[in-house]
């Protein structure tokens, strides 16, 4: 028995790409035994999508795969074959949780829908993550991240109002859904402790991502107000980026009540005339206020202004490059990055724990090689002999 939070939980991970794998990465990090089931030969399609370590296309060098699958075991299994389906059922019998993100009709066509699996394991918690949920008219609609970002109302608010909406760089909709799925699974395990029963969780990426705009959306529903892109002109003022001597600085007038403390930073009394005292007034006088503010900011180097603001209790920031982000003094002091070894790509810095738990630590372990744990899982857990495993591999089942 380990001292991790989820050391008692076994997860069968049928997921691929981003949303399912990030969810199961978190489960693995907090101690769950996660058995990732991959397609024989090629594995999770993410293994074939770059960017790749050193630009070398290889199933073991996909950088997003290496990030998204830490701490898991990998087995290969052909879910389309009858033997494969039989083996999955045996694995499910031994599991607490199944996570999958196939299109909604795929698993039922394989006889592996929740209704099939719960007959073998009534305590099973199964999480199904999909673009638009398990029912409704868009159930079978296809999507890449950009479409999910668009359909969840986020893209409408991102970018320049004079141009087309802009996709967020990170896969924001899918990561939102991944965290919702993790929370959903743990809430179901919490309930299972009391009832002994499992349940089926339906996570729609669209709905999970909608929480990102819940404040604007409820104003549409109840007040009829519809938000537009603002090009990052925040409703607070100042609350945005300005050019400085060597880059960009976020001049944030928050906590709002503290803005006058900026007197100690900017040697420009006009900024602190009493007519500008209230943040909402400043917003309506944005142009004239910026005319005074922008030249003041220009005189500073970005890190100097960041520290000067923070010294006054104001939440200033600078626009960090990735290099600078990796070297943040705060990250170094908290040892946010950990080094991990991998037999193919070697030793590298990864983000460690997403949060620190005083009693139940995070485990940092590398992503698995394709089929790395076939012998262990099929042998130890299901009792296959070496010869049987080899035969299944030759048959293309493993």
């Amino acid at each position, binding site marked *: 028995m380990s001292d991790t939070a989820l050391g008692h939980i076994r997860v069968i991970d049928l997921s691929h790409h981003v949303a399912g794998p990030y969810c199961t990465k978190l489960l693995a990090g907090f101690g769950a035994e996660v058995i990732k089931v991959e397609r024989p030969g090629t594995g999770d399609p993410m293994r074939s999508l*770059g960017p790749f*370590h*050193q630009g070398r296309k290889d199933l073991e060098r996909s950088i997003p795969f290496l990030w998204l699958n830490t701490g898991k075991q990998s087995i290969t299994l052909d879910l389309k074959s009858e033997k494969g389906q039989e083996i999955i059922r045996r694995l499910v019998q031994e599991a607490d949780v199944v996570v999958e993100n196939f299109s909604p009709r795929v698993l039922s066509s394989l006889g592996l829908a929740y209704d099939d699996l719960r007959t073998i394991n009534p305590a099973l918690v199964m999480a199904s993550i999909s673009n638009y949920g398990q029912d409704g*008219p868009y159930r079978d609609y296809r*999507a890449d991240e950009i479409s*999910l970002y*668009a359909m969840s*109302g986020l*893209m*409408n*608010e991102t*970018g320049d109002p004079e141009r*087309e909406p802009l*996709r*967020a*760089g*990170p896969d*924001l909709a899918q990561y939102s859904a991944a*965290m919702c799925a*993790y*929370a959903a699974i743990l809430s179901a395990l919490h*309930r299972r402790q009391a009832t002994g029963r*499992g*349940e*089926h969780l*339906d996570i729609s990426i*669209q709905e999970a991502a909608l*929480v*990102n705009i819940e404040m604007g*959306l*409820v*104003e549409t*529903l*109840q007040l009829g*107000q519809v*938000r537009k892109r603002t*090009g990052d002109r925040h409703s607070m003022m100042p609350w945005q980026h300005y050019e400085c001597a060597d880059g960009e600085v976020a001049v944030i007038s928050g906590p*709002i*009540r*503290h803005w006058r403390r900026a007197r100690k930073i900017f040697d420009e009394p006009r900024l602190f005339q009493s007519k500008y005292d*209230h*943040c*909402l007034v400043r917003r309506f006088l944005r142009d004239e206020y910026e005319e005074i503010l922008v030249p003041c900011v220009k005189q500073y180097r970005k890190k100097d202004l960041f520290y000067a603001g923070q010294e006054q209790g*104001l*939440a200033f*920031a*600078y*626009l*960090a*490059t990735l290099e600078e*982000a990796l070297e943040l*003094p*705060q990250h170094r002091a*908290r040892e*946010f990055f950990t080094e991990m070894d991998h037999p193919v790509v070697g030793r590298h810095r990864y*983000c460690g724990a997403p949060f*620190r*738990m005083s*009693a*139940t630590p995070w485990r940092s372990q590398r992503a698995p090689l394709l089929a790395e744990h076939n012998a262990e899982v099929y042998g130890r857990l299901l009792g296959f002999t070496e010869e049987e495993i080899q035969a299944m591999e030759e048959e293309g089942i493993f």
Partner: protein
Amino acid sequence: MSEQPFAGIRVLDFAHEWAASIGPRLLGDLGAEVIRVEYARRMCVIRGARLGRKMYNRHPRWHQVNRNKRSLTLDLRQERDLDAFMDLVRISDIMVSNSRPHVLEKLGIAYDDLKRVRPDIILVLMSAFGTGGPWSGFAGFGGTIEPLSGLQQLTAYSRQGKRYRTREMDVCNGLMGTCAIMTALLHRQRTGEGQFVDLSQTETATHSLMGEHLLEYVMNREQTLPLGNRHSYFAPQGCYPCRGDDRWVTLTVQSEKQWQALCGLMGRPQWVDDERFAGRSRRRRYHDLIDEAIAAWSRELSHYQAMHLLQGAGIPSGAVLDGRDLQQDEHLAARDYFMTAGDAGDLLFPGLLFRSSGGDGRIFRRGPDLGEGNEYVLRDLLGRPEDEVSRLDEKEIGTGYDPE
């Protein structure tokens, strides 16, 4: 009706603004009793800037973010209120806060203080920069965390172009805070052990949105993003104009079959055999030309029409929806996504984070009026005499917008 997952759990919501409100709100949706602790002299910014007509009780955004919660007003610098707070800790299971660590210490409600009266208490402290380290006392909002974490380097129309903010740091951090809460509660249910969760919002934003992008930089000293609306692998991908004002549709062509279908839709069947467009790499070289052709086609259609046609042809696509579209969207309606709250009549609220066959979450009340739960908590739960129940003095209420 099956039992809600967190029935019997009592949550102290010591949040300011949005991020730390999200986890307690989900617990409320799922059956926990959530008590929002408020400081009336400086209310949460989500309660707005105006006192007249008690506007601070009337904002839909407050009603949404803090639904299913009670409101308790306390001034923790007063001994009597601090005593009441500690009595409340004694009968609570978890506290969630996004204060900077030294603020809790100064108020005498740091983890060790809480633990003294409630040994199995959970504290999830989700400050901007975490506990310890040179920036622990620094202030941070989404607008601070997004640039410092490097995240903002990933979103722009072009490689060298202006960097834009995305939506929404408070939410990705709030969702990770929710994961922390769930993890700690499950462990406590099984072992009886509480704990302290130290969450840095700068770290969680990094972890939950840019792990693979930082790893790319670590491994290759390169960054693929930003690419505007294009895809790093597939082509074409983009956001194209539709009929109407500020109407757009997105699409991604992920296979040759989808490319052929798109050529058919656009009325350019000759492009199917055109060598310039054979395979995603070549299409990337002619992306501008392809974009023009797609735009010429999409411009004649509504964004929904374009999406339905593209989906009908098997091409991943999505209309860029605004709030009004979402309100009227047939899919969300069919899934009953929008919900009423028990005490708010017909008014609709954005719904649940997920659905469950074991019984869904519920919205039984909108976000509370300031001090709505004072009597319930102080008199009914804690048994304080009538004269110790905090009565709100209108003159002492202040907004989060007031200058110092």
